[in-house]
């Protein structure tokens, strides 16, 4: 029952499959940084770093915000564990609700049967 998170996990793993991108995440875990700063630190062109940050951003691992002419990057709100845990509790909530709904549905069905008789 892990298929519920699969498309997103695929994106996350794809994002993490690259050493530079992992380095960027480690860097951002210490402090936020602009794309220019990241490009310099990793000896890359601005365009190259923008692409890496874009991949991380789409996977939810990094958030960026443009203030003036500077795009600042920081770690995304979602790590894998949080998302999986959140989906798990969301599913438990609905499982509990639907189990209770099942009981009510049975009551209503019994009532209909009795009315028919």
């Amino acid at each position, binding site marked *: 029952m892990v298929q519920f998170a699969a498309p997103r996990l695929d994106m996350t793993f794809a994002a993490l499959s690259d050493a530079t991108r992992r380095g960027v995440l480690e860097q951002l*875990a210490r402090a936020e940084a602009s794309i220019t700063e990241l490009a310099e630190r990793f000896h890359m062109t601005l365009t190259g770093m923008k692409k890496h940050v874009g991949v991380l951003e789409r996977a939810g691992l990094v958030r960026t915000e443009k203030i003036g002419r500077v795009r600042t990057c920081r770690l995304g709100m979602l790590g894998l564990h949080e998302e*999986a845990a959140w989906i798990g509790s969301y599913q438990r909530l609905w499982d*509990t609700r639907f189990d209770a709904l099942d009981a009510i549905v049975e009551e*209503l069905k019994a009532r209909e049967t009795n009315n028919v008789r």
Partner: protein
Amino acid sequence: MYAEGEQTGGRTKVERTEREMVVTRSFDAPARILFEAWSKPELFTRWWVPKSAGINLLSCEMDVRTGGSYRLAFGDDPAKAMTFFGKYVEVVPNERIVWTNEESDQGAISTVTFEERDGKTLLRFSELYPTKEALDEAFVGMEGGMPEQLDQLEVLLVELTGA
């Protein structure tokens, strides 16, 4: 690695896409019965707020028809109640209910559909958020969770990089 997100035994399936959460489950009953359990407040509150959740329902008003509104209040103290409210955008008896969630300006549009086949009904519930960010926020809740999340992310990065 994401074992805490797994769920076994239940027949409830949950999927997330960028802006939407979708829950599906099959019920052994015709659609009209599910619609009744979803649209009558005295039935709805019995399952929407399961006793095991430990949350006290203070009040529930529901006018389940297109253009009608609803309001649910939770909590122990009515003065500090947490309220959820909105409007029914579309109600097709025994088929579908669509409503807004207006307690937040980034609230989702909720849709439930009942698809009957051979006396059984496939229930599909979805929450469609205006943006991916709004759904992410709903995931994360308050920002208070951040430091711990960053710790966990760092642990994960260490695992993945083998550092």
